[in-house]
């Protein structure tokens, strides 16, 4: 039995190209990983991270559990295509073995088994299972077609706009399974076999077409099916469908602990090319929902970056609020990729920068507890006064790092991409903290908090957001705020919530003061205030629009006071709100002694 027919050529060539490109790409990326990352991988392989990764690959790459969480129908669509196709291949393999025993069968033999197996006795069970699987996949294809027409039905307000290569691959993909249906049905019509799907359609063909006609249809259909596969395979590594395979190594690498950083690395390739451009990131983006900007979202950013057409306007136009990353089914580290793209666009190492920081010290007071207000807090003096009051009530001696004007924490500059220059500021502040011998560093700015925790080397100094610090004081009985009937609502600052995972502490503090009512989108889904320092592209009017939208959500709770825990959020929401907007420290300070 030979497993070759001329129509197999497109498939064979396509598959060869695809696997070659795939292997070359992965090989190069792995080879280019920094040495430390390679060691991390080697150390990780013999651990239980490997089976965990396998589990995740099944759960995500095949079953698409994350997408199910976004929308069941969308999840089903992705699962039917991915898992269905996988099963078609896997069951097809078993089918071949069942028919022919364990022997070498070339790839096309498995894929086009129906065509080559006409001389063999049929096994109706396999016919039935394979038809069932084909139906499963076809249902996904139908949903995909439907999604193109009406994305809202699948829980997406917006769907992705594609580049030309994607359209070629997508068109091929759409036709693969209908073509398979027609091809297999034609063969069944001529030679018998098939189950409820291919068998029935085959019967219908033989009833309505002449034998030569059906034979022509069969040849054409198999050619078409093979060509679709071939085109898809050739286009795949250069299109968004690269994600189908790239997600697998990404899951393993991530499980082993390899991460992208503020400088571009080979790991970024695994991430960018693992993006399926599903477009789930578009909907949560406030630039889209409030400002109707629909060219800068993560999906487009990754696309532009991957194809080398990233413009600063796209890279810069992002609040880096992290709402999209929270929903990304592939868990791509979107903010980090955005950051190192900005670094690549803008970072210029310049040793002479910030020479003026040398020997500078404008701090005041002394104590084991240090307080870093941050630039923005200096523009919200009520927060500053409240913190002073709280320190006083708690009886902590405080070293004030920057009350008389200090040096920025460096995060805004880092977020703009000037990472090397930001390091100079970070080093300066680190030295300052060490020089004054503090053991606890409290800040009321989540932007500072995040950079202190992630980028500063502050071993021996505990870094606390003021919400954590205040909660500790309350729990230790050192701060006794009065509880009353005030209804508060709370806005999660991006850098504090999604950025630093601090959701519960501010809420616990508020509950010690009064009643907390949650807005409709909260915690991981909380919106950004719009004034994020990460975005340097949108103008003032746009910031205000976002702030108004956020303020409206918070006011819809019916709360009397809007509380937040970030000076920037406070300023921004304050512009859009009718109700008073207070920092957490203010409402606490109002209720003590």
């Amino acid at each position: 039995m030979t497993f070759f027919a001329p129509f197999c050529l497109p498939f064979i060539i396509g598959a060869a190209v695809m696997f070659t490109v795939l292997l070359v790409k992965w090989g190069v990326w792995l080879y280019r990983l920094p040495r430390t990352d390679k060691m991390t991988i080697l150390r990780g392989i013999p651990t239980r991270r490997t089976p965990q990764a396998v589990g995740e690959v099944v759960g995500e790459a095949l079953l698409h559990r994350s997408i199910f969480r976004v929308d069941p129908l969308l999840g089903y669509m992705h699962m039917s295509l991915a898992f269905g196709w996988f099963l078609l291949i896997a069951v097809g393999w078993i089918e071949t073995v069942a028919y022919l025993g364990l022997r070498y069968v070339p790839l096309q033999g498995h894929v086009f088994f129906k065509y080559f197996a006409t001389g063999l006795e049929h096994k109706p069970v396999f016919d039935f299972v394979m038809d069932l699987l084909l139906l499963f996949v076809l249902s996904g294809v139908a949903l995909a077609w439907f999604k193109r027409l009406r994305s809202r039905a699948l829980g997406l307000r917006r769907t992705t706009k594609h580049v030309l290569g994607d359209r070629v691959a997508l068109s091929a993909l759409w036709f693969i399974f209908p073509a398979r249906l027609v091809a297999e049905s034609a063969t069944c019509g001529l030679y018998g076999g098939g189950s409820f799907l291919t068998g029935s359609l085959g019967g219908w063909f033989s009833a309505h077409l002449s034998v030569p006609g059906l034979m022509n249809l069969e040849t054409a259909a198999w050619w078409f099916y093979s060509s679709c596969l071939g085109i898809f395979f050739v286009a795949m590594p250069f299109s968004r469908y690269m994600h189908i395979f790239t997600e697998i190594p990404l899951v393993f690498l991530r499980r082993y602990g390899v991460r992208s950083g503020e400088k571009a690395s080979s790991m970024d390739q695994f991430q960018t090319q693992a993006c399926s451009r599903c477009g789930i990131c578009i909907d949560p983006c406030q630039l889209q929902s409030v400002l109707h900007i629909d060219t800068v979202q993560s999906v487009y950013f990754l696309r532009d970056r991957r194809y080398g057409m990233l413009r600063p306007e796209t890279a810069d136009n992002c609040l880096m609020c992290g709402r999209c990353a929270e929903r990304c089914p592939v868990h791509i580290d979107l903010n980090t990729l955005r950051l190192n793209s900005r670094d690549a666009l803008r970072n210029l190492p310049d040793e002479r920068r910030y020479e003026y920081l040398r020997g500078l010290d404008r701090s005041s007071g002394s104590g084991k507890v240090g307080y870093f207000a941050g630039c923005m807090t200096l523009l919200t003096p009520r927060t500053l006064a409240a913190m002073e009051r709280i320190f006083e009530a708690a009886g902590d001696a405080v070293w004030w790092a920057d009350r008389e004007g200090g040096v920025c924490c460096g995060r805004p500059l880092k977020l703009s991409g000037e990472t090397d220059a930001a390091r100079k500021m970070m080093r300066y502040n680190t030295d300052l903290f060490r020089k004054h011998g503090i053991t606890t560093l409290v800040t009321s700015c989540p932007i500072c908090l995040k950079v202190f925790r992630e980028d500063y080397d502050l071993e021996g100094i505990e870094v606390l957001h003021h919400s954590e610090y205040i909660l500790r004081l309350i729990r230790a009985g050192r701060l006794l705020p009065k509880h009353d009937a005030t209804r508060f609502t709370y806005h999660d600052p991006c850098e504090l919530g999604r950025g630093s995972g601090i959701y519960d502490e501010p809420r616990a503090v508020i509950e010690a003061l009064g009643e907390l009512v949650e807005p409709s989108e909260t915690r991981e889904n909380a919106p950004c205030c719009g004034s994020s320092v990460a975005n340097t592209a949108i103008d003032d009017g746009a910031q205000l629009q976002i702030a108004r939208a956020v303020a409206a959500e918070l006011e819809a709770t019916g709360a009397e006071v809007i509380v937040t825990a970030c000076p920037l959020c406070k300023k921004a929401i304050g512009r859009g709100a009718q109700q008073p907007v207070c920092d957490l420290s203010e409402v606490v300070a109002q209720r003590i002694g």
Partner: protein
Amino acid sequence: MATINFGYTISKPRAIDMDRNNLRKSDEILREMPELQACIGCGSCTAVCTAGNLTSFNFRRVHTLIRRGEYQGAYEEMNKCMLCGKCRLVCPRGINTRGVAMLIKRKLGDNRS
């Protein structure tokens, strides 16, 4: 050329000469950020500036000079900025000052993008 040490040389004019200054970069900056032209010179940005609190850095003056085609030293001056964003919070004309700072550095410093 004959050389005599007179003990002094012809002072360079301090005047901003709009006929000699090349306004191309200034025009490019204004085209990308027309809102910069809405500056009314109130000085809020400079008053609140974190870097200006520590150095002689004057954002308002630097971008005004750039708009007149005086680029000499502007990039180095602009590099004193920490990009903390306080200026953007206080600008009464709502100018995206951080965007301006980055744009100026991009136009006058690295031309990679």
